[in-house]
């Protein structure tokens, strides 16, 4: 698979899980994973999943509009996603930017770095 195929497939699956079965995202993080969730720094899969268990919403539909991928020099994949997230009972979606650095461990792709930001939307 090319880095593009890996990155796109990974991102699509990620938001599918985020929208429908968030707890299953535990499988894509490791103890060394770093996440910056709207400016908040989290380290390790356990912290990230604990944070996801305490989001201010229960139902959200994530829609990735653009997924751009580059190979990284450490044989990983850099993914930039630009999309929308529609929270239940909200009329206007929020716009988000998400960046992943995917790395491999024992032949399995996981997220070593992730930076997520809401960058607008919400009817403004």
């Amino acid at each position, binding site marked *: 698979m090319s880095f593009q195929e890996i990155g796109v497939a990974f991102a699509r699956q990620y938001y599918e899980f985020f929208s429908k079965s968030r707890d299953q995202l535990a499988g894509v993080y490791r103890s060394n994973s*770093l996440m910056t969730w709207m*400016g908040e720094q989290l380290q390790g899969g356990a912290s990230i999943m604990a944070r996801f268990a305490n989001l201010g919403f229960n139902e959200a539909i994530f829609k990735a509009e653009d997924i751009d991928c580059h190979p990284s*020099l*450490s044989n990983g994949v850099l993914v*930039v996603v630009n999309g929308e997230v529609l929270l239940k009972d909200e009329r206007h979606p929020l716009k988000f*930017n998400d960046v992943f650095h995917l790395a491999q461990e024992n032949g399995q792709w996981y997220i070593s770095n992730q930076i997520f930001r809401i960058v607008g939307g919400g009817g403004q």
Partner: protein
Amino acid sequence: MTEYSDCTEVSKKALEFRQQFYQLLDDPNKRMDIVNLYAPGTPLLCEWNGHSLPDAASITAYLSGLPRTNHKIDCVDAQPLPGNEHADSFLMTVHGVVTYDNEHRREFFQRLVIRKVDGRYYIINDYYRWLSEKE
């Protein structure tokens, strides 16, 4: 395992780099100096609004045709990358609004990979894109 001090050092380096980068980019007299921030002799991956810029010559040509800019930064995030030692390799994202020729405003997003080579910090991967138009 990434140490807390790596994250602190990365934050510091990222803010320094952000200051340097946009200062050069927005200064008409110093803009071309920005080419020196890109790693020499390393495979470069640079994509600005869909334009692929694989080397210093392409970056120079692209910047020559770019109108005058003024970048207003809303947020900067940065994290050490795997295998880094003492914050010598990090991922950085920037979000803000860019104004062209004091007229046209666009929301922009940029993602950079910075690595220390021979004691200096360089860009080895760069992705810049517009998001929305600003009124």
